[in-house]
C-alpha cells in the first residue's frame, strides 16, 4: 500500500488518481469537522442572542492579552506549516524537518498558554458546576458562557493535540526520507488539517474574548 512511497495503492490506477482522491478525502473530512464545531457555534449564537449582557460580562473573565498572544502563536504556526508544505513540494528535506518541528513547538506553546488560562479559571472558581463561585445576579448566563468556553476551547485543544501527534509522525517519517518531490501527500493533508484548526481559533478568539469587551 502507501508504504511504497511513490507507487500507487492497488485500488488506484496511478499516483495522480491516488493524490486526487486523498486530497478530496481530506477536504470532505474538514467539512465534517466544520459540522462538528457547528453544533457548538449554534449553541453560542443562540445563547448570545438570549443573554447578550450576561455574555458580555462573562467575557471579561477571559484574558485578552493571553488570547491575543495565542492567536499570534497559532497564526505563526500556520505560516511555518505552509512553509513546511512548500519545502516538501520542492523536495527539501532539511527545511521540511525544521518547519515541522517549529510548527510543533508553536502548537505546544499554544497549549501551554491555554493550560495557564485554564488553571487560572480553576483557581478563580470559574469552572461551571457545583463549585462555580460567581453568584452575581446573572450567574446563570455567565455559567452558560463559561460552559461554552470550556466546551469549545476544550474540543479545539483536543484537535491541537491530535495535530501535534500527526506532525510528530510526519517528522519521524520525514527523517526516514519518506517524502520527496514526487510524494508528499501526507505533509500536504496534515497541513490542511492544521490550518483548519487555526481557522477555528480565528473565530473562537473574537467570539469568546473580544465581543462585549468594550462594555
Amino acid at each position, binding site marked *: 500500500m502507501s508504504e511504497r512511497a511513490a507507487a500507487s495503492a492497488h485500488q488506484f490506477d496511478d499516483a495522480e488518481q491516488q493524490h486526487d482522491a486523498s486530497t478530496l478525502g481530506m477536504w470532505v473530512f474538514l467539512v465534517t469537522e466544520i459540522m462538528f464545531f457547528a453544533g457548538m457555534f449554534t449553541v453560542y449564537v443562540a445563547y448570545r442572542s438570549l*443573554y447578550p449582557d450576561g455574555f458580555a460580562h462573562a467575557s471579561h473573565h477571559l484574558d485578552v492579552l493571553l488570547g491575543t498572544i495565542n492567536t499570534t502563536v497559532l497564526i505563526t504556526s500556520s505560516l511555518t506549516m505552509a512553509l513546511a508544505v512548500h519545502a516538501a513540494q520542492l523536495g527539501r528535506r532539511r527545511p521540511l524537518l525544521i518547519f515541522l518541528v517549529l510548527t510543533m513547538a508553536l502548537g505546544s506553546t499554544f497549549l501551554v498558554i491555554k493550560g495557564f488560562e485554564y488553571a487560572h479559571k480553576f483557581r478563580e472558581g470559574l469552572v461551571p458546576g457545583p463549585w462555580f463561585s460567581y453568584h*452575581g*445576579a*446573572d*450567574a*446563570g*448566563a455567565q455559567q452558560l458562557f463559561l460552559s461554552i468556553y470550556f466546551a469549545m476551547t476544550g474540543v479545539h485543544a483536543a484537535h491541537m493535540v491530535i495535530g501535534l501527534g500527526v506532525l510528530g509522525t510526519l517528522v519521524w517519517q520525514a527523517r526516514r526520507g519518506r517524502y520527496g518531490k514526487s510524494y508528499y501527500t501526507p505533509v500536504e493533508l496534515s497541513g490542511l488539517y492544521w490550518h483548519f484548526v487555526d481557522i477555528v481559533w480565528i473565530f473562537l478568539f473574537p467570539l469568546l474574548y473580544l465581543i462585549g469587551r468594550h462594555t
Partner: protein
Amino acid sequence: MFSNLPFFPEQASTVAQRVDALYFFLISVSGFFGILIAVLLVYFAFKYRRRSESDRPAAIHGSMALELTWTLIPFGLSMVMFFWGASVYVSLARPPDNALQVFVVGKQWMWKIQHLEGRREINELHVPVGRSVKLTMTSEDVIHSFYVPAFRVKADVLPGRYTSLWFEATKPGTYHLFCAEYCGTEHSGMIGHVVVMEPAEYQAWLSGGPPAASLATAGQALFEQLGCITCHRGDAGARGPLLVGLVGKPVQLQSGETVIADETYLRESILNPQAKIVAGFQPIMPTFKGLVSEEGLIQLIAYIKSLQPADGEKAGGLPLAEGSH
C-alpha cells in the same frame, strides 16, 4: 357493539371538529393516492407479467409531461394541507382574551393544578363547558406534555419557562389527560382526567373543597413576605418599577428594547432580574431563584396581574400605542 374496539376518539372541544375535518381531508387525499398506486402496481404487474424468458420490452425513458404532472399536483395538494394545518395551529396558539385562566405545574409524575379562585387539584382538571380555558404551564423537573385526546390539544410543559394551551370544551363528561412526553419511570402513570361540567355545577365545585385563598391573595402574602413591597411601592422614590396595571403592557428597557410584560417576562424578572433592566432603574434587585417554588411564582404572577389601576391612578409600563390592539 365495539365498545372495546374504538376507531375514533370522542370530539369534545371546538377545535376537535376542525382537526378532524383536516384529518378526513388528509385521509381522502392519501387514500386516493395510496389506492391509485396499489391498483396501478397490481394491474401493471399482472397485465405485463413475463410471458417468455426472452422478453426484452422496448425502453421508455420517461415523459416530461408526466413528471411535471406528478410533481405539481401533489405540490398543490400539499399546499392546501399546509395552509389549512397552519390556520388551525395559529388558532391553537392564540387563546381568546376572555379565556378562563388555570395554572398547571408538571412534576415527576403528577399534574398540579391551581385555579385563580384558589382551588387546587392533582391529576384532575375541572372546567366549565362552553367557556374557553387557557392553561399556563411549567415544569419543576423534566419536559412533560399536557395532552387531552378528546380535545385534540397537546403542549409540552418545559422547566424554566411557561407554555400555554387553550381549549373550549363542548360536551360535559370525563376525558383522558395524558403526559405525552416521556419523563421517566412512571411516565405512563402521569395521567388523569379532565372533567367538563355545566357552568352552574362548575361554580358549585369551585366553591367546594377546603377553604383556600385565591391565587392573588396567596400571591399578595408572598409578595409581602419576600419583601418585594419594599422596592415595588409605586411612589416617586421607589427603587423598583411600579407593577400596577403592568401586565400585557410594553416595557421600555435600559438596552433600548421594548418587551411585553407577559407571564414569561415576570417569571424571568423574579428569577433572573438582571436579564432585562427597566429603563431608569438600577440593576439592584437580587435573584429569588431557589426562594420561590413554581407554584409560588404562579401566585406572585397572579397577584401582579390582579393589580389594576383605579381611575386616575397611574399604571406601570408604557401606554399601549394606538392601533396595537
